[in-house]
């Protein structure tokens, strides 16, 4: 019996999945309430995953039929040959096409989240079923895991991803926090993951590299630096107030920085937090854990 392919976690906007390790995330669109992920392998599109949070129970059959019509329009597939149950709370439909069978699946997950999986080229139903069955979603007020492009962090409730930049050798993601999900942004988090850590630091260490990145009038205070032994660096970059009013009141802007190097991948990860309240703890995933435990304080490996 053939072994299932190894999988890796993929988690965005409160939707957690496990996808084959050979697949690449090539497109991310949308936000917490609704969005789409595009997956590809070997330069070929493989699967589209869309989600929508409405707060009410989704009409699975209606959504599945709408997705089927779209499949017929875009990929030239025929009408569905029938619907079957998927993971107890969903449906899967098969659409024949000249190249083979294309499948669409839908599940109603917690928090009123409907997730639709659509194969972008013919493939076995088991492939879609295994991905859909392992999927989970969290509600609006729940902590969420974010795992994509090598980043893997678990954030408390009400953190929302605002943007991702992914180019060769660099991933940068920005999250904003709004208390209760409404009102003004009170905290911001930026995670960067850079390839070729040894070349970037160039013998000056992470602290030296961070100093070179500082803005004008910024000073860096190193609170802890264990990067030489595979640990983390914790620092605070202090700059002048962002507005005249803040500068007149002699207020500063502090960026709390945590950085570490993954020796195995030669990647430098930099976590930057700015905002009100207690600074965010280190988000470095523990190597032994399958998932990333939620941060419980300013402690770190």
């Amino acid at each position, binding site marked *: 019996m053939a072994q299932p392919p190894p999988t890796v976690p993929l988690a965005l906007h409160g939707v957690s999945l496990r996808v084959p390790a050979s697949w690449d995330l090539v497109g991310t669109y949308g936000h917490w309430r609704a969005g789409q992920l595009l997956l590809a392998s070997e330069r070929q599109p493989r699967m589209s995953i869309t989600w929508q949070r409405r707060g009410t129970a989704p009409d699975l059959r209606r959504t599945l039929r709408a997705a089927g019509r779209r499949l017929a329009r875009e990929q030239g597939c025929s009408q569905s040959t029938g619907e079957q149950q998927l993971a107890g709370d969903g449906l899967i439909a098969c659409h024949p096409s000249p190249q083979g069978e294309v499948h669409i699946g839908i599940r109603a997950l917690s928090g009123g989240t409907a997730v639709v999986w659509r194969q972008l080229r013919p493939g076995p139903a088991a492939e879609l079923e295994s991905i859909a069955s392992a999927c989970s979603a969290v509600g609006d007020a729940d902590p969420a895991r974010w795992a994509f492009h090598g980043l893997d962090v678990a954030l408390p409730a009400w953190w929302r991803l605002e943007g991702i930049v992914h*180019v060769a050798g660099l991933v940068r993601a920005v999250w904003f926090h709004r208390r209760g999900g409404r009102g003004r942004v009170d905290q911001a988090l930026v995670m960067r993951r850079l390839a070729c850590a040894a070349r970037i630091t160039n013998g000056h260490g992470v602290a030296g590299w961070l100093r070179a990145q500082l803005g004008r009038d910024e000073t860096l205070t190193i609170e802890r630096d264990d990067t030489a032994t595979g640990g983390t660096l914790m620092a605070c970059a202090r700059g002048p107030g962002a507005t005249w009013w803040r500068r007149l009141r002699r207020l500063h802007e502090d960026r709390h920085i945590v950085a570490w190097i993954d020796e195995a991948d030669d990647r430098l990860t930099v976590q930057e937090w700015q905002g009100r309240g207690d600074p965010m703890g280190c988000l470095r995933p523990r190597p032994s854990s399958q998932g990333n435990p939620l941060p419980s304080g300013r402690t770190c490996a």
Partner: protein
Amino acid sequence: MTTALAAQASAVPRLAERVEVLRTETGALRLRGPMLERPAPLRMVAWLLRAPGRTEVELDDIGAWVVDRIDGRPLEQLSRELAAHLRLSRREAEVALADFLVALRRRNLVVLDATPPSAGPGRA
């Protein structure tokens, strides 16, 4: 353009005709293109603006590493070797390599053969 180039996995990059590869005293690698052939009015403008007479680029160590391996290897093999050298993912290496080659091709320093050459390395 980068994506289209990355999709040509079997294409073989080679240095364009009359492109010279020079090593500087500091060990950096320079690619020097041939003298630019400008029409007479543009020659005057170029002389007034002190525009360089040829394309010349200095590569960093990663760029030099790639150019050293432009010897008839297809893009796919180059990207695989780059991924192993820099510990990048396969896709990252493909995109980075394609970006680099597009930049060199825009300066007429590199050409891309659709099929592997039948005899000998393509190095100029």
